[in-house]
């Protein structure tokens, strides 16, 4: 029993430590230049996929997630508040421009925690302190229920609440009980859940300036599971290894062509980095050719890699 307790305490000490960013290692200059050029090309072609608010992928009911990330990666390119209704709640797409997803039956709720990953990244990078204050106040006043519909989707859980409270503290100086919430980082997530977990851990790193041992373990898990995914490779480089070459090599993959935006002939589903199912990752050679936004490349490069090589 005594040994078990000692082991438990040692494990907790090892996991709860603060992990700062590692020193960056030397990068392959040619590779870095090629990726930089590809990102510039994509940035110049992306506006063709943006609506009047700058939103992308608006045919889906996850537009606020992807558009929030894009607006963080290219400040000024997205008016994220177009997705905030007169009730000060955020929605899945700009209101008034598209049918509301819950009412029209396209989704089981007006908002989901996925959307808040994009929203929080956007608010933090663009230092929208008043909007952070409003969001935190609304969450508290509504018992952390952020919309209507399926209860499992619309309630803020401790991980996101703590992050929002810390943003409120750093941007507005407002201390709160929510800052002291415990967090849980679930092991074994795959597909879009893994993608969301990594973006959330990365934002924790940005806001707090460090990540803890549990978060580090999740980043390592996802990189080891899918080293070809540039998001996971970039997160691993940023917080674990300092070696950016695998992330740059993953971005250099011809799956994302250097001279044009990718299409369904390159891979079947938009936002490749959130998928694990081979049917989404492989080219669709039979259906109509659909052009993708390619925005995941810009978002990864600008938010995680740029300025850290």
């Amino acid at each position, binding site marked *: 029993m005594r040994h078990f307790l000692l082991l438990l305490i040692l494990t907790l000490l090892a996991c709860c430590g603060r992990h700062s960013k590692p020193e960056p290692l030397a990068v392959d200059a040619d590779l870095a230049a090629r990726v930089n050029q590809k990102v510039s090309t994509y940035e110049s072609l992306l506006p063709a996929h943006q609506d009047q608010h700058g939103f992308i992928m608006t045919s889906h009911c996850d537009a606020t997630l992807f558009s929030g990330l894009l607006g963080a990666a290219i400040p000024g390119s997205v008016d994220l508040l177009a997705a905030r209704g007169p009730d000060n709640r955020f929605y899945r797409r700009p209101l008034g421009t598209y049918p509301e997803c819950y009412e029209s039956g396209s989704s089981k709720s007006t908002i989901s925690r996925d959307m808040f990953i994009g929203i929080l990244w956007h608010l933090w990078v663009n230092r929208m302190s008043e909007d952070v204050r409003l969001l935190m106040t609304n969450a508290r006043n509504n*018992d*952390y229920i952020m919309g209507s519909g399926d*209860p*499992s989707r619309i*309630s803020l859980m*401790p991980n996101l609440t703590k992050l929002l409270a810390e943003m409120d503290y750093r941007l507005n100086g407002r201390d709160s009980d929510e800052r002291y*919430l415990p967090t849980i980082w679930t092991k074994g997530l795959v597909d879009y859940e893994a993608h969301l977990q990594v973006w959330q851990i990365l934002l924790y790193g940005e806001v707090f300036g460090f990540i803890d041992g549990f978060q580090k373990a999740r980043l390592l898990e996802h990189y080891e599971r899918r080293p070809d995914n540039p998001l996971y490779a970039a997160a691993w480089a940023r917080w674990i290894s300092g070696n950016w070459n695998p992330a740059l090599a993953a971005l250099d993959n011809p799956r994302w062509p250097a001279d044009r935006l990718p299409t369904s002939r390159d891979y079947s589903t938009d936002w490749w980095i959130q998928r694990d199912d081979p049917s989404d990752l492989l080219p669709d050679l039979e259906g109509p050719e659909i052009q993708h936004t390619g925005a995941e490349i810009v978002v990864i490069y600008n938010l995680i890699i740029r300025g850290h090589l």
Partner: protein
Amino acid sequence: MRAIPVIVRMAWGLIKVILANPQYLLGYLKRRNSKK
């Protein structure tokens, strides 16, 4: 210790919204029972 009131309010919020949307809880229980 400071987080406890927040956790209680989160749980209360979730209970309120489940009571307002009982179809989700009933649907979940139905799916769970059909698996057994």
